[in-house]
C-alpha cells in the first residue's frame, strides 16, 4: 500500500508548478555558482602553484621558509572559510605564526566587496531546497483534509503511519531530482576541467556531502508534515513553516554569533595588542642597542657577525616568549568560536553548514590544523636556528651539519573530516527523527 502512496505523491509533486519552478531555480543557481566557483578555484590553484614555484626558486638564493595552503577543489560545494582566511604563512624567527596572509584579512578585495556575500552549492541547498521541501509538504495533510480526500484515503486499509511514510518517501524522491542533478552538474564541471584532479577520498566526500544534504532536506520535509497535520488550513501551515524557515535560515546563524560575542567575551583586540607590545618593548630596547653597534661596525667596515648572532638570538627569544601569549589568544578565539558553533547546532541549517564545510575541508577546523602545523614547524625551525647560530661562532663545520625541518605540506585526511562533521551529521539525523516522530504523533491524534 505504501508503494502506491509513494508513487502517487511522487507523480503529483512532479507535475506541480511549485516543484518545476523550484527545480529550475535550484538548477540555475547551482549551474551558475559551480561555473563561477570552478573558474575561481582554477585561478586560485594557478596562483598557489605559481607562488610555490616562485618560492622554490627563491630558496636557492635566500632561505626564507613559507608554508602555503592549497585551495580545496571541493570548495565549490561549500566555500566555508577557504577564501576568507589566509593561505600563506611566512616563517620569521622573531614572530610565531598567528594568522595566515593572503585572502580575507589581508586582501583589499574584502574592503571593496564587503556588501556582497558569495553563493555556493551549499547555499542553494540551504535556502532553495529547504524552501522546496516546505512547498512540497505544507499542504500534504491539511490540503487533503480541506479537499476531503484524506477521509477517503484513510477509509481504506491503510494505517496513518503508512500514509505518512508514503507521503514522506514520495516527496523525498521528488527532492532527490534537483539535488542529484545539482551534484551531477557540479561533478561534470569538476571532471571536465583539466586543472582539477579528484582522488578516491574526494569521491567519498562527495557521497557524504550528498547524504548530509539529503538529511538536511528531510528535516524540513518531516517538519512540513508535522505542521501540516496540526494546522487548521494550508495557508496557516505555510505561514507557520515560513516563519520557522526564516528564523532557522536567516536569523538564527546571526544570533548565534551575536550570542557568542556577548555571552562568551574574550579580550578585546586592543587589550591583546597591549599585552604583546608590553612584552616586545622589553626586548626591543636590547635589540636597538645591539643594532646601533652593528650599524657602527658596518660603517667602519668591521666584522659584525658576533653582534648579528646576538641580535638574532634575542629576536628568537622574544618570538618564543610572545608566542605563549599568542597561543592564549588563539585558545580564546577557539573557545568563543566553539561556543558559537554549538549554538548554531540548535538549527538544522547550522548543522548542515558545519557538516558540509567539515566534509570538504573548508571549515575553520581545517584552517586550525594548517596554523597548528605551521606553528609546530616554527618551533622546530627556531630550535635548529638557535643551534646553528651558536655553532656559527664556535664550529663552522658542525654548523653546516645542522638540518633544518622540511616545510610541511598540510593534508586533510578523510577520517579527520568525518570526525569533525560527525556531531553535526548525528544532530541532523536526530532532528529528522524528532520531526518525523512529532509528525506521526500529531497526525495520529488529529481529526481527518
Amino acid at each position: 500500500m505504501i508503494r502506491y502512496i509513494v508513487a502517487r505523491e511522487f507523480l503529483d509533486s512532479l507535475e506541480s508548478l511549485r516543484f518545476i519552478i523550484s527545480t529550475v531555480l535550484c538548477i540555475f543557481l547551482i549551474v551558475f555558482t559551480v561555473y563561477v566557483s570552478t573558474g575561481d578555484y582554477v585561478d586560485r590553484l594557478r596562483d598557489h602553484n605559481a607562488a610555490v614555484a616562485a618560492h622554490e626558486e627563491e630558496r636557492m638564493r635566500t632561505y626564507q621558509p613559507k608554508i602555503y595552503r592549497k585551495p580545496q577543489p571541493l570548495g565549490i560545494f561549500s566555500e566555508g572559510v577557504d577564501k576568507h582566511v589566509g593561505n600563506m604563512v611566512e616563517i620569521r624567527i622573531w614572530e610565531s605564526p598567528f594568522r595566515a596572509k593572503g585572502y580575507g584579512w589581508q586582501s583589499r578585495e574584502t574592503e571593496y566587496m564587503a556588501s556582497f556575500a558569495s553563493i555556493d552549492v551549499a547555499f542553494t541547498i540551504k535556502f532553495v531546497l529547504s524552501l522546496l521541501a516546505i512547498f512540497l509538504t505544507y499542504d500534504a495533510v491539511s490540503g487533503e483534509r480541506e479537499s476531503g480526500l484524506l477521509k477517503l484515503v484513510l477509509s481504506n486499509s491503510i494505517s496513518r503511519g503508512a500514509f505518512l511514510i508514503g507521503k514522506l518517501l514520495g516527496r523525498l524522491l521528488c527532492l532527490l531530482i534537483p539535488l542529484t542533478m545539482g551534484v551531477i552538474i557540479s561533478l561534470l564541471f569538476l571532471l571536465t576541467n583539466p586543472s582539477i584532479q579528484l582522488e578516491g577520498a574526494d569521491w567519498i566526500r562527495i557521497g557524504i556531502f550528498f547524504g548530509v544534504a539529503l538529511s538536511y532536506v528531510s528535516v524540513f520535509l518531516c517538519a512540513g508534515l508535522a505542521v501540516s497535520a496540526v494546522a487548521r488550513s494550508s495557508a496557516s501551515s505555510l505561514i507557520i513553516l515560513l516563519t520557522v524557515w526564516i528564523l532557522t535560515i536567516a536569523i538564527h546563524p546571526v544570533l548565534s554569533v551575536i550570542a557568542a560575542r556577548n555571552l562568551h567575551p574574550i579580550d578585546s583586540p586592543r587589550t591583546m595588542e597591549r599585552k604583546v607590545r608590553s612584552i616586545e618593548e622589553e626586548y626591543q630596547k636590547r635589540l636597538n642597542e645591539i643594532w646601533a653597534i652593528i650599524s657602527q661596525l658596518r660603517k667602519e667596515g668591521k666584522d659584525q657577525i658576533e653582534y648579528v648572532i646576538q641580535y638574532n638570538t634575542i629576536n628568537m627569544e622574544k618570538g618564543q616568549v610572545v608566542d605563549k601569549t599568542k597561543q592564549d589568544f588563539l585558545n580564546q578565539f577557539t573557545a568563543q568560536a566553539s561556543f558559537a558553533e554549538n549554538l548554531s547546532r540548535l538549527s538544522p541549517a547550522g548543522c548542515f553548514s558545519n557538516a558540509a564545510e567539515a566534509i570538504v575541508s573548508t571549515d575553520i577546523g581545517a584552517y586550525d590544523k594548517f596554523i597548528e602545523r605551521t606553528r609546530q614547524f616554527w618551533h622546530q625551525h627556531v630550535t635548529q636556528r638557535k643551534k646553528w647560530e651558536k655553532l656559527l661562532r664556535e664550529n663552522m663545520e658542525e654548523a653546516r651539519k645542522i638540518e633544518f625541518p622540511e616545510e610541511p605540506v598540510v593534508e586533510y585526511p578523510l577520517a579527520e573530516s568525518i570526525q569533525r562533521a560527525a556531531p553535526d551529521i548525528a544532530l541532523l539525523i536526530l532532528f529528522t527523527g524528532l520531526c518525523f516522530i512529532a509528525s506521526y504523533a500529531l497526525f495520529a491524534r488529529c481529526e481527518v
Partner: protein
Amino acid sequence: MIWIILRKELAYHITTARAFIFLIISISLFVINGLTFVGAYKSDVETYGDPRAESRVGRSTIGTALTAKPNPLEFCVEGNAHIRPRMLSINLDGTIQSQRRSQYENFKLPDVRRIDWSFIIQTIYALFCVVLTFDAISGERLRGTLRLMASNSVSRAQILLGKYLAVLIISLAVLLIGGLISLAIINLLSVAIPMKADVVPLLLFVLLSMFYVSLFVSMSLLASSLTRTSATALLSLLFIVIVLVFVVPNMAGIIAGKLVDAPTDYETRARSDAVGTEYVEAARELRERIQNGIIKDRDEIVKADRETYLRMVEDRKQIQKEYESGLMGKQKMAEALALISPSSAFQASGESLANSGAVFQRRFRSAAERYQVIYLGYVESKVGEIIPTWQPPGTFRLPDKSIINIPEVRPKQYDGDMSDLPLFAYPNPSIPERLQSALFNTALLVLWNVICFLGAHIIFIRRDI
C-alpha cells in the same frame, strides 16, 4: 467609503495570528539590535573616539592617519562597517592606504551581517508584508466576500487602496513600536542616540522603509489579483522575495567578478615582488658601474641610488593604483547589477541617508584625497621639501677599495609648533546632500512601487470577481 474598508481591514489584520507573529518577531529583533549596538558602539568610541569631538589629525610631517568616527546611525544601517577599514594613512608619496583591522579580532567566528534596522526591514518586513497581503484579493474572491463588497457603492480602486493602506499602516505601526523600543534600550544603556543632527536622517530612513515595504504590499496585491488561489499567490510571491532579497544581491558580486577583469591579490603581490627584484638587479648594475669606474663622483652615486629607489617606489605605487582601480570598478559593477533587486536599492539609499557602508567609504576616501593635497602643502611649508619615502642606508665600494656610506633618507619631522595644522573636514554631508545621494536609488524604489501598484490596479479592475 475607503475609511470603512480601511477600518475593516485593520480590524481584520490586528486579530490574525500572522500579525501577532510579525509583531513579536519584529520586537525581538529590534531589542537584539538595541542591545548589540550599544556594546559595539561603546567599544568603537573607546577605540576611535567620540563622534561629537572634533576630528583630530596626528601632528606629524612624516605622514598622518585619519580615523572614521563611530557612526551613531549604525544601529539603523550598519553597512558592514565591522569589515571595512576605519583608518586611512596619508603618506608623503601621494598614496592613501587603508589600515587593516586588528589581527587580534576573532577571525574564527563566522562573518555574519549585523542585525540593523535595514536587515530587519529587508527580510522580515518584506516577508510578512507578503504574508499579510497574499490573500487580500484571492482569499476574498474564494470566500465570496469580494462580490459582496464590490456590489456596494465602492469602486475597485478604493477596495485596493483600502487594503494597501491597511497593511502599510500596520507595518508602520510595528516599525515605530520596534524602533522606539530599540532607541529606548540604546538610551537606557547610557548612549545618547540619536543626536540632534541624526533625527532627520532617521525619519527619512523610516520614510524610505515605507517605500520598500509598500513595494512588497503592491506586489502581493498584484499576485493576489492575478492568481486564482491564495496558495499560488503566496508561493509565487515567496519565490520572488527569495530571489530579490537573498539571491540577486549576492549574485551581483559574483557576476561583477566575472565581468570586470581586476587583478587578484596574488597577481598584484607578484608584480610588486617583481619590481623589488628589478630594483635589486638595478642596484647590482649600479655597483658594477661604480666598480668599473664609470661613476666616480660621490654625489653622482648618491643621486643614481636615490633615483633607482624612487623608481621602484613609483612602480609599486602604480601597481597598487591599478589594483585599487580594478577593485573599484568591480565594486561599481556589482552595485549597479544589484540594483535589479529593490533590496539593494533600499540598502544603498539607506547607506546614503545614514552616511554608512560603501557610500561612506567613498566619501571618506574622497575627503582624504582632498585633505592629502592640503597636508602635503602644509608639510612643504614647514620642512621645505617633501621626501616621499624612507630609503635604507647603503654602502658602495669604489675601485680603490674605499667605502662610500650613503646614509638613510628619512622624511623630515618638524619639531616646531604645529597647532596651525589644517583640520580634516570629516565627511558629514548635509541633509540635502544625503537626499541627493539617495535620490537615484529611492527613485528606483518608487518606480517599482508605481509599476506594481498600477499592475495590481489594472489586473484587479479587469478581472472577474
